[in-house]
């Protein structure tokens, strides 16, 4: 038995960490909206997904206690991400080599607006 009757496997995370993560997530939200309102060309989607992934990793590591969980949990999380990537990447091998709108036509002028 551990602290205050907790089970040995318990990992009690301090609320201070939760507050820091919360602020980081809110900051990330602010940043991603601001970035979306500016023109970075094809990098917009990359920035949006990168910030989303950073936020997701914070939620998983700290709110879901992954950082304090056994290696097995890490394997489970990595497997989920890996399999999702397989689904997307291998299907992409088909679609990148077929005509898309971008390869057929140039985007119109009024495509971009505030």
């Amino acid at each position, binding site marked *: 038995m551990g602290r205050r009757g907790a089970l040995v496997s318990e990992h009690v995370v301090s609320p201070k960490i939760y507050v820091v993560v919360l602020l980081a997530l809110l900051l990330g939200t602010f940043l991603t909206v601001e970035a979306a309102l500016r023109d970075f060309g094809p990098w917009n989607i990359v920035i949006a997904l990168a910030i989303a992934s950073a936020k997701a990793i914070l939620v998983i590591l700290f709110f879901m206690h992954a950082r304090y969980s056994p290696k097995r949990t890490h394997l489970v999380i990595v497997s989920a991400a890996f399999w999702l990537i397989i*689904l997307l990447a*291998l299907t992409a*091998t088909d679609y990148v*080599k077929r005509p898309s709108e971008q390869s057929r036509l140039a985007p119109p002028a009024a495509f971009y607006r505030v």
Partner: protein
Amino acid sequence: MPPSPDNKFPRDHYLNATYGIRSWLLTTDHKRIALLYLISVTFFFFIGGILATLIRIHLLTPSGALVTPETYNKLFTMHGVAMIFFFLIPSIPAVLGNFLIPMMIGAKDLAFPKINLLSWYIYIVGGCFVLYSFSTGGLDTGWTFYTPLSSVYSNSAVTPAVIGIFINGFSSILTGLNFIVTIHTMRAPGMTWFRLPLFAWAHYATSLVMILGTPVVAITLLLAGLERMFHLGFFNPAMGGDPILFQHLFWFYSHPAVYIMILPSMGVISEIIPTFARKPIFGYSFIAGSSIAIAVIGFLVWAHHMFVTGESTYAALTFSFLSYLVAIPSAVKVFNWTSTLYKGSISWDAPMLYALGFIGLFTIGGLTGLFLACLGLDIHIHDTYFVIAHFHYIMVGGAVMGYVGGLHFWWPKITGKLYPEALSRIAAITLFVGFNLTFFPQFILGYLGMPRRYHSYPPEFQVLNVLSTAGASILAIGYLLPMIYLTWSMRYGKVAGQNPWPATGLEWKTDSPPPTENFHVTPQVDWEPYDYNNRPDLGLAAGRPLAPAHGDD
């Protein structure tokens, strides 16, 4: 022969622990749930079998005089749906896996017994939807539900079928979840990962596939069903959709699904061969590792089903190469089983006959898969009877033989009774002969160009088709015989005792039939698996003359 430690039929066991229909329908005992599944999957096997019979009778003549072309489309579709989703995928995991995994690891039950029962009910509900579809217009899209035929143009009962398969997917997912957690957290003291029986490794790998693949087909069928109901356009070219996208999503699951169907069967073979060769299995860690390898690599090859449907050549090359890789771990298993047989003391009991049949037939099926994985060759043999023969060699010659062999091997444990040995060997041989006569001609037919899913064929193919149908009638007898004598044995069979073969697994160290809690005392494991040279408690020790394994004497 060395006597079994306990030849008596136990007074109290899981079958008579409680009485009444409620005690069965509300049970949480994994062994009873396994029997509930046994009854349900056998029912769907009958449905699929009747449909197969109609197909083969129809194909006796080139112009197909039994049914109309539209009905023929329904026959092969429903045969596929019933057999794949409601028989093959659940069969070994839900019947033998459910029954044996807790016992093999020394646990009292699975990690989540109520979820286990729930998964059976989900299977039944899914099955009801599909039966409703079958009986109100049937299904004519092929078991692959390609769009836009299934989502727009078909006039058959697609929606209820799709709902039924969607629901059934969750049965699979929950079973897989239960097995993974159980194997991780519920092993008895001393049961380390590398002392696990290979049957457990096989089911662990299968469960990985169930967990990772089934949700994708669930969302795919949901999308196709929504498209059909609300005229959305994801997979309909007329609305800007892409039918190939459906195929990518569908095959992402359905290819690994074939590994769900074969991996458990390979696990059964890995249990049977050492027992009836009286030898430790050759290359335990390689067989264990190859199960995981098959599960992982199996997810990387799905678009080999789409070589000629319009995917880019770049993708086709990638998937063709990966498909050759996935054959390697399967071959590793075949080499290891064969090496186990070498210099073993072979007994020809029914389970062994099924296992040996598996090795030969699976090898043929697997090698012909490589024919199909070759891009240039596939252009000619795709959508022909070559494909049909290929997958029936693996699914029937492989998976079903493993299932029937496993049922025979563990029947004494499940029921406490022995089946008639001579009759069982005759049935095994009948099945083997009937199977080959049914499906080998189909390789030739496919090679000669007979397309699949056609209700008629050119007259020059008739002889081979008649041979195939004749084989099917023999195959049917091969299936019916065990159904009869296994049922008969429950009442009239000889008492089996704890360990009739004898075999070295943990499940054989408890009564036949087992008590509800599996073991009267939690076992402490301090021996290695398949240790046929060194188990004096079973009368198996180095230096003693090796006695052949026996069923009833």
